[in-house]
Every structure is written in structure tokens, then in C-alpha cells.
């Protein structure tokens, strides 16, 4: 289990992470979302042990991810800016991962085939997507306990995304691994994440089980014979209010059945309930905050 408590990190005078707390359970995939500059990459780098926490702690199974080298061995970090030494090939990088991590040659071969990569080609000739595949290949081949993926889908074409999602699912089925993924593609995250953490201004604004959170926010489409104002819905937690003629479109937080019962008391001539997706959830939460 990954446990982050009261984590702070500043760049000069700018405090990028502020008293951040986050827990990631085993066998869980957490989607890390937030606007640009929210602190997603800084958080992932801190977890990976690139940045030393200024205050607070980051523990994987009770051991520091910055100071404990055995713990670092269990972490695979795929940075948003992939780095490969000049002239390196997949074979030469294999040497590196064999020397440093618990490298699994069978898994390596399996993912090499899956990502359709040539082991002898120079990585510098690869496209951005191919380089991303190389990074993922090695991250998966070391059987990490914690997999950190910064902008995981960046540069990957649809088939590669599919393969990657499949690989993640396989990994979670077989091993006690936790995954933290940051991405701007919330639709992609929704497919694989079971929980999420929404970062804003360096702290977790909202987080938890993704399905539960989505269930708790719904879109309601209503029509009335008589005129209503926003005040008529003041007993409900309205995240978005929109009126077109006699049709009202509301996004409301709260238990769906309770909200529905309250709305029915207002005698609507039409009441449709639609679920929200992860992207909408993100937008509504962010809009409400501002």
C-alpha cells in the first residue's frame, strides 16, 4: 500500500505540493487528474524518489520511497519525458534493467512481442509513441509493486493503448501491484481506473472510488408545466443549472433515489436521469470549486 502523508514540495518560492495526503491500496489503479500545473508530475516524481519530500512522508509498504533502495527497486516510473542514453537500443537498455531491477526475461519477451518492438534498432530513430512503448515495456518487465505513469497515453496510437490497457489488466490480475496514472485523456483513464485523485493547487481536491463518485453525481433532465427558478431546487446540491424554455438540465450531487424522490415531489411532466462520465465529473467538480 502506498501512503502519502502531509507531503509538501516547493520550487523556489512556489509551493507546488501542499500538505498532500493520499492512500493507494494494493491492486488498485488510481487516475491522477488535474489541470496543467496542478502538481501531478511533481507528485509522481516525489513518489518515484526523484524529489525528496520537504515535509511529510511517502511510504510504500511502510518504507520510504526516497531513502530505501530496496523499495525503489519495486517502483517503475515512466516519466512524461522519456530518456534514453545516446545510441541505446532495447538490448542495451535490457542490460541496465537487468543490473538494477528484478528483471523478468519472460515478461520482457512477452511485452516486446505485444508492443511490436525491434530489440536491435536504435531508440533515437523511434517515434514518440514507439519510445513510450519502450518505456512501458521495461516498466512492466521488472514486475513493479508500484507503477507510476506520467501522461501514460501520450503518443500512443489506439491499438497500442488497447495493448497497454490489456497489459495493465493482466498485471493486476497476477500480482499485488498498485498503479498511479496521470493523463489528460480522462476517457482512457475511466476505462481502467478504479479510483481517482483530483489535484488542484498542490493538494487533493477530491478523490476516492471512481464508480461511487460517479454514482453520486447525475444529470437530470426535467420539464414542468409551470415556471421554476433555481431557488426552487435549493434543497439539492446543484453543480450545474441550465434552462431552455420549459426544459431544465441539472447536474446534482447526491444519492440518485433521494434526489429523484425530491424532484418528483415538484410534479415534473418529464424526468430523465443520465449518468456522468469521468470527464464530466472532473469538469463539474472543478467548476463548483471555482
Amino acid at each position, binding site marked *: 500500500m502506498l501512503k502519502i502523508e502531509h507531503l509538501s514540495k516547493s*520550487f523556489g518560492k512556489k509551493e507546488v505540493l501542499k500538505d498532500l495526503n493520499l492512500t493507494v491500496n494494493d491492486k488498485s489503479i488510481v487516475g491522477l487528474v488535474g489541470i496543467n500545473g496542478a502538481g501531478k508530475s511533481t507528485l509522481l*516524481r516525489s513518489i*518515484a*524518489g*526523484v*524529489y*525528496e519530500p520537504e515535509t511529510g512522508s511517502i511510504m510504500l509498504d511502510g518504507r520510504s520511497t526516497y531513502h530505501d*533502495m*530496496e523499495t*525503489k*527497486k519495486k*517502483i517503475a*516510473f515512466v*516519466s512524461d*519525458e*522519456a*530518456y534514453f*542514453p545516446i545510441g*541505446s537500443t532495447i538490448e*542495451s537498455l535490457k*542490460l*541496465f534493467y537487468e*543490473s*538494477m*531491477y528484478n528483471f523478468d526475461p519472460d515478461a520482457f519477451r512477452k511485452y516486446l512481442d505485444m508492443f511490436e518492438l525491434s530489440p536491435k534498432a536504435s531508440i533515437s530513430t523511434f517515434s514518440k509513441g514507439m519510445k513510450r512503448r519502450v518505456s512501458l515495456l521495461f516498466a512492466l518487465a521488472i514486475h513493479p509493486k508500484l507503477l507510476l505513469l506520467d501522461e501514460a497515453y501520450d503518443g500512443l496510437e489506439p491499438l497500442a493503448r488497447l495493448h497497454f490497457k490489456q497489459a495493465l489488466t493482466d498485471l493486476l490480475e497476477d500480482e499485488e501491484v498498485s498503479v498511479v496514472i496521470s493523463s489528460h485523456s480522462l476517457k482512457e483513464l475511466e476505462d481502467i481506473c478504479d479510483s481517482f485523485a483530483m489535484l488542484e493547487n498542490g493538494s487533493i481536491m477530491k478523490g476516492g472510488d471512481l464508480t461511487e463518485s460517479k454514482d453520486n453525481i447525475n444529470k437530470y433532465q426535467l420539464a414542468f408545466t409551470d415556471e421554476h427558478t433555481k431557488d426552487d431546487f435549493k434543497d439539492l446540491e446543484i453543480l450545474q443549472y441550465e434552462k431552455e424554455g420549459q426544459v431544465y438540465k441539472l447536474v446534482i450531487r447526491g444519492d440518485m433515489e433521494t434526489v429523484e424522490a425530491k424532484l418528483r415531489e415538484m410534479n415534473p411532466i418529464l424526468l430523465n436521469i443520465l449518468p456522468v462520465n469521468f470527464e464530466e465529473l472532473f469538469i463539474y467538480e472543478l467548476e463548483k470549486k471555482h
Partner: protein
Amino acid sequence: MNKNYFKWLIRSRKISLLFFILIYIGFQLIPFTGFDPVYPKDTFITSANIGCVLSILLTIAMPVYLFSYIHRKSSVDMYFSLPVSRKEQLITNLFLTWLISYGCFFVGTTLVWLLRARGIILLRTFVALQLFSVFSIAVLTLFHTAVYTITNTVFDGVVMIGAYTLLPVIVELTVISFLYSMIAGRNLPSDSLVNQIGTLLSPISMFFINTGAILEPEYSDTGFMSLYLLPMSIFALLSALLLRHHFIKRKAERAEQLSDDILAYPFIINVYLLLVLLDLSWTVVSDSFEGLQFVYLLLFFIYIVASFVYKRSIKISYKPIVLFLIFCIGTMGFAKLGWATEGFGLSSLPYNLYSEKYLCYQYRADVKLEDLSLDNSDNYDENYANVSFILTIPTENKADYKDIIEKLEAYRKQSRSRFYNRNTGYSSVYFEVYNKKAEDDYREYNDYSYTGAYPFSEEELKEISRYCDVTVYPIINKETGSLKFGDLEAMTLVDFLNFRQVFN
């Protein structure tokens, strides 16, 4: 040290390392092509000297090669997230740098020694060379790596290594300029550490000087300087402390940022400026100086350009301009104070006259043919005479020379006063007092030299000629009567006086 990391470094860089090694050994074996059986020792010495230079270059190139990852955002992520602690990464990289830099030196010198010089270079000398090189290359490895890690980009790292390597030379020049321009007689004994300040600030110089002393003690002024082991150890210690701060405790986010650490550009730019301004101010205060404004303006532009390089921006702010002006005024004030106090009192320090076996007085002046007490420095188109003498006194017989020593010391005191009251214009008179270990020794100790002294009168020269040869060399630039250009050769004082009488 981390064994796995070390193995990976070797395996992943084997081609480039092999390239370094082959080039190194190839260069070291070059003296073989000019092997002279009459001087077999020279082959080994040249080869060892080439090895020293190449090892120094490797202690610069290898840290740039191995530590560059800390200067790139993308590579920092990879290396700092490795399950290898920063301390282990540092020690492993340092060890590899030292191993390649010294290993090549060892292989090269051993090959040459075994093949060509075993009978000539004693085993003791060979072992001493190796031991000192082991230590020096370790110090240089630490020092260059520490300087490289002060910065935040590869370019700045290379610039800093260059700047810190050159800094002792600039310090030395400033000190020499101070001694020559501000202190009458450069009044410092040979063994003063001030004379060695540039060397003591440069591990490279200390490495070279001591290596030279091991290989060719007969040509070494000082012999092997055990004293250098102390500053070199201090360099190693300071470098280790810097590396702790700039590598082990390094903030990964520094990569690709401005190199604004106090020891990087802010220090180097301002220290260089200060030293050059001091140099200039010594010259300005001690001598009339033409084109002063142009030099200061040029320096100002260089300073501003250096600030642009540091800030990566061509925005001019008031800060460097104000700092430049403060430095100009400060250095000029300091130099004026130095001149007013006759070199901060250093010119009045007691002389070290009899520390060696011989005391020597040397005199040289361009004077008028018709009167040897008149300086000719302002008229070299006319006929004139060059008068010179070297009076060598065995210190054990100094009592026999008591009178002349007293006179020459009085002359020296006058020369000192004239040095600080130069309203008489330029003087061609050069007067020097020094010690020697042997009569035929070319090296000079406790060397005090005076410019701007007055020329000796003919009576004084006659008295001096009782103790040593006084040579007069008439220079004929204009044909006068029977005197033709190039007619005359150097002659003794008596001969000259006779010749002049006849000529007149």
C-alpha cells in the same frame, strides 16, 4: 560503491571507454618514435608528461561524460529514481573516472618504463611517480567533478571547469602585477608563499611541479614540495563537501535551470572582474596609462556579456552596472591606498640579504656617452652607452665588502624612494639584488629588482669597478667624425673613459 551500477557503466560505455584508453596509450607511446639512445631518460619523461596532461584532460572529460544526467530534466528522472543511492552513484562514477584517468597513466608509463627506461629511471622514482599520481588524479577527479556539479547545465559545467582552472593564473598575474607595480623592489623573499599563490590555488600546477621534481630533480627549483600535499588534501576535502551538497543533496529540479549557485556564475564573473580591475588599478596608480577609458569600457562590455550568458537573457538591469561602478571605485581606492602606504608597508620589510652562499648586485642603464650619470631613456636615436655590472659577493667574506655593500644598500634605499616619487619620467636604469647558491647557478633567490633608480655617477662606477668588471657598450646611432656605426664593442669602464678622452 554499487557493483551492479559499476558493471552497467562499464558495459554500456565500453566503446567510448575503449576509445579513450586507446587514444591515451597511443599518445603516450609517441615519444617512442623519436627514441634517442643517447638520452633514453627523455623518452620516459616526455611520455610521463604526456600522460599527466592526458590524465588531467580525462579528469575533466569523464565527469562531464558520466555526470551529465544531472543537467537534463529527462535523464534526472531516470537516474534519480534508480534503486542506487545518490552516494553510491557518486562514488561509483568517481571511481570509474579515477580508474580510467590513473589506469591509463599507469599502463602507459609502466609500458615505457619496462621497454625503454628500466635501467635509467630508478624503481624508487617510478614508484614515487605512481604514488603521487594516484593521489593527484584522485584530487583532480574530485575537484573537477565538484566544479561541474555546481552548475545546472552541461554548457555551464564546462564553462565553470574552464573558469576555475584559469582562475589561479589570473590570481597569480594580479599578485605579480601588484608586486611589480606597487612594491619597490618586489620586496618579498623567495620562500614567501605569496610568490606561490597561483600554484597553491591550482591542483593542476601542484601536480605538474611535483611530478617534474620527481622526474627531473636536477632541474627543479624547489625539489619535491611535500607542502603541496596539504593544499591538495584541502582541495579534496572541500570538493567532497561540495559534492555532498551539489550531488547527494541535490534538488533534481535544478536541471536546465540558471546556474545561480553562489559558487557558479555569481562568484566567477565577479571575482574575474575584481581581479582584472585590481590589475588595471595597480597599473593606473603606479604608472601613467594611456587609453584608460577604452580598457574600462571594454571590460564593462565583457562583464555585461558574461551576465547575459549567465542569465540567458539580454535584458540589462541596473544591478551589474552599479556593481561594476562600485568595483571600479573600490579597486581604484584600494590601489591608491596601496601606493600612498608604499605597497601597504611591504616595501619597507627587512631584506633577506645573506640567506644563500652569494649576494649579487646587478646594474644596467642606458646613459649618455658624454656623462654616464645622465639617463638616456628619452633619446634612443642618439649615440649612447649601455653600462652594466654584476657584483657577486661570497656571503662568508661579506666583511671584506662592507663599504661597497653599505653604499649599494644606500643606493637601494634611494631607488625605493624614487619608485614612489616618479616625477622624473621614465628611467632606463635597472637595479637588482639577489642571492645565489653557487657562482655558476642560473637560479636567483630573494630577487629584489628596482626600476626608476638614478644612474651611477662615473666616480661611483669607478669605485664599483674595484670589486667587479663594469662594462660599457657604446651604441653609435649617428656617425660622428671618425666614429662609424657598428665600430665599437663592449669595453671596461677604464677603457671607455680613455676612449672617450681620445674621441673628445
